[in-house]
C-alpha cells in the first residue's frame, strides 16, 4: 500500500444522554437511574491510502456516519487520534488545521436538507472559495461556472435556487460545493442513497470520473453493498460501533471472513439471483445503548462460542492487508 493519507488510531466517540431535573432528583433519592451512554464509535483504527476509495458499510446505528463526521472535522472525537498527512488533527497549528479542514470535504445524504433554500446556486458554490481566497469576488461567476461544468450542471442555471432542481441535480450542487475549495479527500455519507436508480448511476460515474481527473481520495459511506462493491478498492465493515472486517473489495466479495460480513453479503439482493430461497440472519440489531458483551455479534452469530460472550475479539491481520475481528480465526 502506498503512503497513508489518513490514519485513524483507536478512535472513539460517545454520546451521553444527560439526566433531566426530575431524573437527577430521583437519582438523589436513591432511584437506580444512570446517565445513558452510547458508544457510537468504539476504538476504530484504519488507514486510507492516497488515491484510494474506501467503502464503509454497516447497518443503521453502526456508527459509520459518526466516524465520517469525525474525519470531516464536524464532530470532535471522545478519544483517539486522526492523523492526516502525517500530522494529528489535534496537534496542528492554525494554518495546518485550516488547510486540512479545506482539503477534507464532506458530501451529505439528503440533497434537500444540505442546501440552503434561500441561497442561489452561485452563492452556495461560490461562498467558500471567495472566503478562502481561491477566487476574487469579481471572478466568482466564472469560477462557479467552471465547477458546475465539471459536475455536469449547466452553468446557465447558476442564478437559480435549489428548489428549482431535481434530486440528482441537487446532489451535483452538493458535490460542486465540496469541489469548489479544491479538496483532496472526500467523505461521502450515503451520497447517493436518496436517488433513483438511473440518477444513481449518473452520480456514481461522476464520482469515478472526478477521482481520475482530480486524483481524489474517498471515504464512501453506504449501507448499499452493491454500490460499495462497484466503486471501492477496500471495504470496511462496521457493526455496533466496531470494525469487524477490513479487506480489499475482491477478497471480501470472494470470501468474507467475519460471520457478520458473510451474513451481510448473503443478504444483498442481486439482479442475477432469481427465485432465491431467503435464509435470513436471525434476530434484530441490538440497541447501541446496551450492546451485548464480548463480541457484539454473538447473539446473532451461528458460530458463537462461550469465548465470544466473554471476550471482545481484537481486529488482527489474518492475511496480508486483511483484518478481521473474530475468535474463530484463532482456532487455526
Amino acid at each position: 500500500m502506498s503512503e497513508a493519507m489518513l490514519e485513524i488510531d483507536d478512535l472513539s466517540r460517545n454520546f451521553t444522554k444527560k439526566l433531566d431535573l426530575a431524573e437527577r432528583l430521583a437519582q438523589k433519592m436513591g432511584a437506580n437511574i444512570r446517565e445513558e451512554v452510547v458508544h457510537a464509535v468504539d476504538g476504530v483504527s484504519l488507514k486510507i491510502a492516497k488515491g484510494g476509495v474506501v467503502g464503509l458499510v454497516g447497518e443503521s446505528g453502526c456508527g459509520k456516519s459518526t466516524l465520517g463526521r469525525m474525519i470531516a472535522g464536524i464532530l470532535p472525537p471522545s478519544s483517539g487520534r486522526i492523523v492526516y498527512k502525517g500530522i494529528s488533527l489535534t496537534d496542528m497549528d492554525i494554518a495546518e488545521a485550516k488547510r486540512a479542514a479545506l482539503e477534507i470535504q464532506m458530501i451529505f445524504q439528503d440533497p434537500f436538507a444540505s442546501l440552503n433554500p434561500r441561497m442561489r446556486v452561485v452563492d452556495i458554490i461560490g461562498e467558500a472559495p471567495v472566503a478562502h481566497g481561491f477566487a476574487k469576488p469579481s471572478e466568482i461567476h466564472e469560477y462557479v461556472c467552471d465547477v458546475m461544468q465539471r459536475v455536469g450542471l449547466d452553468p446557465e442555471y447558476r442564478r437559480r435556487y435549489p428548489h428549482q432542481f431535481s434530486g440528482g441535480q441537487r446532489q451535483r450542487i452538493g458535490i460542486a460545493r465540496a469541489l469548489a475549495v479544491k479538496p483532496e479527500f472526500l467523505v461521502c455519507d450515503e451520497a447517493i442513497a436518496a436517488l433513483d436508480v438511473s440518477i444513481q448511476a449518473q452520480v456514481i460515474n461522476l464520482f469515478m470520473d472526478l477521482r481520475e481527473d482530480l486524483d481524489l481520495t474517498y471515504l464512501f459511506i453506504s449501507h448499499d453493498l452493491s454500490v460499495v462493491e462497484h466503486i471501492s478498492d477496500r471495504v470496511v465493515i462496521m457493526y455496533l460501533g466496531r470494525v469487524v472486517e477490513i479487506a480489499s473489495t475482491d477478497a471480501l466479495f470472494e470470501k468474507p471472513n467475519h460471520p457478520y460480513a458473510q451474513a451481510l453479503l448473503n443478504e444483498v439482493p442481486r439482479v442475477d439471483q432469481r427465485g432465491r430461497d431467503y435464509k435470513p440472519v436471525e434476530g434484530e440489531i441490538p440497541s447501541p445503548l446496551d450492546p451485548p458483551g464480548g463480541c457484539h455479534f454473538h447473539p446473532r452469530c451461528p458460530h458463537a462460542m462461550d469465548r465470544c460472550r466473554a471476550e471482545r475479539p481484537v481486529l488482527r491481520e489474518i492475511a496480508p492487508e486483511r483484518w478481521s475481528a473474530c475468535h474463530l480465526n484463532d482456532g487455526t
Partner: protein
Amino acid sequence: MTGTPATLDVRDLKTHFFTKAGVARAVDGVSFSVAKGEVVGLVGESGSGKTVTGFSIIGLVDPPGRVVSGEVLFKGENLLALGNDGMRKLRGNRIAMIFQDPMMTLNPVLRVDTQMVETIKAHDPGVSKRDALLRARDALGQVGIPAPDERLRSYPHQFSGGMRQRVAIAIALLNKPDLIIADEPTTALDVTIQGQILYEAQKLCRETGTSMIWITHDLAVVAGLADKICVMYGGRIVEQGAISDVLDHPVHPYTRGLLGSVPGHNTRGQRLYQIPGMAPSLMNLPEGCAFQARCPKADTACKTEPAITEPVPGRAIRCFHPHLDRSEEVGT
C-alpha cells in the same frame, strides 16, 4: 392469459390527477394480471406511477385523482364498478395492502391486539373476542415475531422498524387475503432485516397461495422474489414478462438502460451505463412514447403512442424499436 381465471386482471387502467396546473396522467393504460400464488414485481423510478397503480387497484385514490377508465377484475369481478361499500368489504379482507412506512398503517395510540381484533371483527362480526385474539396471535407468530402472546399487548412504538413492518404484514394476513399489494415494504429497512421480511413474504406465498404485487424501485429485490415483472415508465408498463426473461434479455430500451445502471450487476470499477436526462414530469408527458427524449433509438415513429406488442411469446412491450437481437450487450 388462459386457463384458470387470474386472481387479478387489470385492463387498460387509467388514473389521472386533475390539478389546477393541469392533468397529470399518473397511470395511463396499464394492463397486467396476477395468477394465484404468483408474485408480480411492479418496478419503476419515482413518479413512474407504480404506487398509484397499487392505490387504484385497492380503491384508495383520493381527489383530485380519479380512475378515468379501465377494468380491475378481481376473480372476475370488476372492482371499479363496486362502489365504496363493496370495496370496504373487500379491503383488508380479500385484498390487503402493506405500506412503506408501517407507522402509517399502525395507530400509535392503540395496542397491537386492539388493532388486530378490530380488523377481524370488521369483516366477521360474529367472531368472539377470544377467537379473534387467538387468530391475531397466530398471525404474529406466522410472520416470525417471538413471544407473540406478550407482543400482542405492546404499542407500535415499542417495536423496532423491522418488527413494526412484520406487525403490518400480520394485520394484512389476518383475514387470509387472496391478494396482497406491498408498496416498497422493505425500502426503509436494513439489509439483514430486509432479508427477514423477504423470507416471510416468500414463505407466505408458497404456503398459502396468496398472490402478491410487490411495488419497488429495487430491481435486485424483485429479481430474487418475483415470478413476473412489470417495468413502469411515465405511467405505462413498458415491458412485462417472466422475471428471468426480462432481466436476462431485456427488450425495451428503458429496461436495458435500467439494468445497465445497476451497480453490482455490472463489472466493478467500470463506468455504469447512464440513461441520459431525467424522468419527464407527468404534467407534460411528450406525445407518443414517454421515454423518447432519453432513448438512444428514438425516431419520428416514437411521436405516436406505441401499442402493446408481443414480439417474444409471453412478453408484452410498448416500443417501436425493441432490442430483439440477443447478442447485443445490455446498456448499448
